[in-house]
C-alpha cells in the first residue's frame, strides 16, 4: 500500500529524513519507535504533506486505484481524499466550527472525490451515531467547536473518532498515546483496534512500549537520525524497553 524508498526531506533547510525506507501492506500494523529528534513526527508530517517540509529525494509510493503513485507533490487534502489519515500529536483547535459540521464536511468531501453523492445531514447523523459507539465522548461533543476547550485526552479521542468516520486506508498515529492516562489510553486503543481491518494499515509512532500492549504491531522499526536502522517483530519493543535507545544504538 505504501512503499517509501530512500526518502529525504528537509524543514527550514535542515535535512530531517536522510534516506528512509519503509514498506506497509494492507492489514498490517507498524510501530515506529526512536529517541527524541530522530525524525518520527517529521515522517508522519511528510507522509501527510505538511507544507513546511519539502521532499528532496526518494519516493513515497502509495497505491491509488491499485497503482503505486508518488504522492510527494500532492496537496494534503488530495492525500486525505485518497485515504491517508494523520492523527495529530497536537490536534489543532478550530473555534466556532462544530464537530458535527467539521466531520460532515470532511466526510462528504472525501465521498465526493470518490464520485459518490454526499450524504444529507440526516443520513450523516445516522452514520455518525454508529461510529460514536467506537469511542465514547461527552454527549454535547458534536455541538462543541472542534477541539476548542478540549482536554488532551478528549483531543486524542476526537482524532480516533475522525479516523473511524473517514475510514482511511492508511492511518498514521503520531504519538497518540502521549499525555493520556491509562483509562484514556485503553479507550483510544480499543477504538483503534475496532477500526483495524485487513483492508487498512496502521502506522503507530510512539516513544513507549506501553501503547503496544494494547495495539499489537506486526512490525517494529527503530528510527534514528532520519533512517530506519532496525526492523523486527514485537519482541524488538521489549528489547528497547529493557535497554533503552542508548543501549540499543551503541
Amino acid at each position, binding site marked *: 500500500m505504501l512503499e517509501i524508498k530512500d526518502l529525504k526531506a528537509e524543514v527550514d533547510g535542515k535535512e530531517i529524513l536522510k534516506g528512509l525506507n519503509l514498506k506497509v501492506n494492507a492489514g498490517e500494523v507498524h510501530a515506529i519507535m526512536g529517541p527524541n529528534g530522530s525524525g518520527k513526527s517529521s515522517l508522519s508530517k511528510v507522509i*501527510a*504533506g*505538511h*507544507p*513546511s517540509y519539502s521532499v528532496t529525494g526518494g519516493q513515497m509510493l502509495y497505491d491509488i486505484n491499485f497503482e503505486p503513485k508518488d504522492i510527494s507533490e500532492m*496537496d*494534503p*487534502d488530495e*492525500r*486525505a*481524499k485518497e485515504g491517508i*489519515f*494523520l492523527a*495529530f500529536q497536537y*490536534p*489543532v483547535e*478550530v*473555534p*466556532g*466550527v462544530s464537530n458535527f459540521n*467539521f466531520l460532515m*464536511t*470532511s*466526510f462528504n*468531501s*472525501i465521498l465526493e*472525490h470518490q464520485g459518490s453523492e454526499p450524504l444529507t445531514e440526516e443520513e450523516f447523523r445516522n452514520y455518525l451515531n454508529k461510529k460514536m459507539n467506537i469511542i465514547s465522548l461527552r454527549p454535547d461533543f458534536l455541538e462543541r*467547536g*472542534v477541539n476548542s476547550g478540549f482536554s488532551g485526552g478528549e483531543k486524542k479521542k476526537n482524532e480516533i473518532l*475522525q479516523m473511524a468516520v*473517514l475510514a482511511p486506508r492508511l492511518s498514521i498515529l503520531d504519538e497518540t498515546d502521549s499525555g493520556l492516562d491509562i483509562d484514556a489510553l485503553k479507550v483510544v486503543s480499543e477504538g483503534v483496534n475496532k477500526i483495524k481491518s485487513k483492508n487498512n494499515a496502521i502506522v503507530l509512532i510512539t516513544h513507549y512500549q506501553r501503547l503496544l500492549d494494547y495495539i499489537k504491531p506486526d512490525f517494529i522499526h527503530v528510527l534514528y537520525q532520519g533512517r530506519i536502522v532496525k526492523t523486527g517483530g514485537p519482541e524488538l519493543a521489549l528489547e528497547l524497553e529493557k535497554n533503552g535507545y542508548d543501549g540499543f544504538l551503541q
Partner: protein
Amino acid sequence: MENKKTASAGPLQEDYAYKYGFETQIESDAVQKGLNEDIIRLISTKKEEPSWMLDYRLKAFRHWQTMKEPQWSGLKYPTIDFQDICYYSAPKKKEGPKSLDELDPELIKTFEKLGIPLGEQKRISGVAVDVVFDSVSVATTHNEELDKVGVVFCSISEAIKTHPDLVKKYLGSIVPYADNFYAALNAAVFTDGSFCYIPKGVRCPIDLSTYFRINAKETGQFERTLLIADEGSYVNYLEGCTAPQRDENQLHAAVVELIALENAEIKYSTVQNWYSGDKEGRGGIYNFVTKRGKCAGKKSKISWTQVESGSSITWKYPSVILQGDESEGSFYSVALTHDMMQADTGTKMIHIGKNTKSTIISKGISVDKSSNAYRGQVKIMPSAENARNYSQCDSMLVGSKSSAHTYPYIDVKNKTAHIEHEATTSRISEDQIFYLQSRGLNMEKSISMLVNGFCKDVFKQLPLEFSVEAVKLIEMKLENSVG
C-alpha cells in the same frame, strides 16, 4: 501564511467573483448632474412632495454647504466631486397606479437574478420586500397579513403623503441633518427608502425587508429609512444591497433611523454586498452611511447585525441611544475586506437611562491588501446609573499584506458603570490549514471554514436564511481572493 498555489485572476474569475455585477438595460428618467437648490426643488417636485418636505431639504442643503467632508477616519480616496453626480434616476414607468403587474419586466428579471422574486407566485414566503432601484422604490410586495395587524410598510415617498404626521415627527429626530456631512447631504437629496410603522402591541407577523440596487451610471443612491416600533411591538428587519460592476466609483450615502418606544424591540440585519472594485481598486461603491437607533422607551431593545462584505469604502457606525431605563442595545458585525477595500466600521452606544445595557461583538477579516478598522464608542452619561457594556472586537488577518485596526473609545461619566472590553488579533495559522486539509478539505474551503467559525457569534444573530446566505457570501469572497 505560506501558500504554494497562486490563483489566476482571469477575467472569467472576476466575473464570477461578483455575480451581481450585471447592468440592467432600462430607460430611466434622470435629472442632470450637479447639486444646487434647483435640483433639490426638481427632485421634490418629481416626488410631488408637500412644502414642509421641500423646506426640510433646503435647510439641510444650506447647512451641508457649510460643512466639510470628515477626515478623521483615515480612509483614502480621491476627492469626490459632488457636482459630478446625478442625484435622481428612476426607471421610466407607465402612467397609472403602481402595481407589481405593471412593473417593467426588465426590473422583475433583474430582481429575480438577484434572488428577490417579486412575482405573485414566486414570492418568498414570510417576508415582505420593498425594492429600491437607483433613486426610487419600485415595488413593495403587498401583504395581507401586515394589513390585518395594521403594520405600515411602504416607500418613504409614499409615507410622506399617507402618514405625514409620523414622518414629520420622527424624520431627522434621531439623525438630524446637522449630524454629519453625509447625513446632511442625504437629508437634502434623499429620493426614497423604506418606511415602517409597527402599531402598539403588535408583533410583526412576517419579516420586513428592503433590497437596494444601484443600476444607473454616475448616479448616487441616497436612501432614507425610517422605522418606528410603537409600545410593546416587535419587528425583524432585513436589508440587502448590490450594484453593477463599474470602473468608476459610485456614492451611496444612506440614513437609517430606528425608534423603539416602551417595551418595543427592533432587530435590524444588513447583508451589504455592494460592488467592491477590482483587484487594483478601480471602481466600487463608496458606502458612507449613518445608521442610528433610539431606545426611547423603558425596556426597549434595538439590535444591529451587519455583514459588510462589499463596497470599496465602508464608513458606517450603526449606533444606539439608550435613553429609556433598562433599555438594551447591541451591535453584531462581520466586516470582510479583500483586495484594496477599506472598511471603517463600528458602533456608538450612548447610555443615558438607568440600568441600560449594551453588547458589541465585532469580527473583522482582512484579506489581500485591504484595511479593516473597528471604531467604536461607549459613552456612559452621568444619568446612566448601573449601565453595563460588553465589547469584544476580534480581527483576523489572512495573508501578510492586510491590516487590522481597533479604535475603541470609552467615555464614562458615571462611576456605577461596568464596562468590559476584549480585543484580539489573530492570523490564520499554517497548522490550522494543514489540519483541515489533512481531513480532505482544500485550501479555500479550509480558510472559509476557519473564517466562518471566527464569525459564528455574529452569524447566529442573523435570521436563518440570511445566515446561510452570509456563510455562502463569505465563502465566495474568500474563494476568489485567497489562492
